[in-house]
């Protein structure tokens, strides 16, 4: 099947009924894991992603230590059952690249100099994938870092834009990602400083700019949802102390 076989729009709406500049439904829960220092569960459309933060903690192996700052490690991993055709467990080239750029998306806001010789570990598990797992992972990781009490200059929010049927769209879903013309994920601070930018496909310079604008608008909306989730967790702690209920995959 190639892109010409798919009609991406019906009556001006997308396959799942969204407008071109509309996000999929997003759900965020903070503090879903007991063992981790900070954690977050996120659903973005059909994506189900969980992030955990451990640290700052001792670095093993020791030669990775840095005398004046904490190192940040980010591990993006897909569960074997998260995709249509079972994925072989363990890291592959794709997950290693995503881990690297995701770490670099978060590191600029983390006050690593507060914790010399330590490591801040971020673990992201994709439980169900539906296009946009890296952006979901970064959004969850940013909330989990805050939940772990890691000092940061700001939150990081991430969203993708794409191009299908010569139209720029926000937050592509699986079909749009597979058969679309371009995918452009970004991550940024609420001020609009971009910390991740990737693109594949084909865009004119003008389209590129419009895609960045649209992805930034999406990321801003996600920032509000991240913030709400954190504030909500706090009020739950005050109203029902000790009842820090866990909600994964509900």
């Amino acid at each position, binding site marked *: 099947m190639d892109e010409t076989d798919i009609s991406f729009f019906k009556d001006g709406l997308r396959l799942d009924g969204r407008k071109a500049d509309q996000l999929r439904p997003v759900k965020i829960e903070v503090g879903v894991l007991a063992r981790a220092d900070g954690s977050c569960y996120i659903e973005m459309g059909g994506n189900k992603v969980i992030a955990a933060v451990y640290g700052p903690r001792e670095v093993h192996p020791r030669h990775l230590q840095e*005398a004046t700052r904490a190192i940040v490690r980010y591990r993006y991993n897909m569960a074997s059952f998260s995709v249509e055709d079972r994925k072989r467990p363990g890291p592959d080239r794709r997950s290693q690249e995503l881990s690297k750029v995701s770490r670099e998306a978060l590191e600029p806001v983390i006050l690593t100099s507060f914790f010399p010789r330590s490591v801040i570990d971020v673990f992201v598990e994709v439980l169900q994938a539906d296009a946009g797992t890296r952006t979901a992972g970064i959004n969850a990781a940013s909330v989990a870092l805050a939940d772990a*009490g890691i*000092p940061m200059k700001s939150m990081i929010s991430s969203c993708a834009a794409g191009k299908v049927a010569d139209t720029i769209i926000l937050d592509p879903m699986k079909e749009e990602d597979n058969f679309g013309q371009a995918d452009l994920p970004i991550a940024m601070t*609420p001020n609009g400083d971009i910390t991740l930018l990737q693109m594949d496909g084909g865009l004119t310079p003008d389209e590129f700019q419009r895609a960045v604008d649209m992805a930034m608008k999406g990321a801003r909306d996600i920032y509000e949802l991240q913030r709400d989730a954190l504030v909500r967790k706090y009020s739950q702690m005050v109203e029902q102390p000790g009842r820090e209920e866990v909600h994964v995959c509900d």
Partner: protein
Amino acid sequence: MDRKVVVPGDLLSEDAKRSGEGTYVKNGSVYSLLYGLANFRDKINVIPLAGKYVPVPGDNVIGVVKDITFSNWIVDINSPYDGLLHISEFPKRIESEEMSKYLHIGSSIMTRVTDVDPTMKVELTLNDKKLGLIKAGQVIEISHTRVPRLIGKGGSMISMLKKEVNCNIFVGQNGRIWIHGGTEDMDLALKTITLIDREAHTNGLTDRIVDFLKTEKGARS
């Protein structure tokens, strides 16, 4: 007092002079570094809801010996950084080969941070009558961010607690607390500290703790 939940990056004030703990200044404005509760007084401080204990000289902490080298005990202090207790900081003169006779792996100690260098080498001492090996009682762990609530303003909460539950209590700034007393007294102390830990972020905590102790003790007698 004005309090508000904030997340990292929230704008707190346009007056740089009000920057307190857990905040940073950029272009003359004050922003939050942490997810936590911002207290707006002259200075704005953000109290985190979680986070790791980072040792500061002068802190009393409770540690667990995790290794022994030629002249140091390596002590886990519930922090990203281990503490080093040098043989010379033991209250009595001992030889290197008998170190494990006095403190072995798994021993809990009440100790104090004497020095932290820029590479986060943490030095500890036992040279004070209040410090030493824990031989009896219980050690419980709460988040170190809750320790200030347990101590209370000017030590009000902890001294009230010690009196009411009739226990010895040693509060480690690293969130580990030693309790020693009669079995029932220790149970009550444990319950009360758990309650303080759980409700540390709520208003009117002291009154609730006083009521709680009254009810519990009433039920006992």
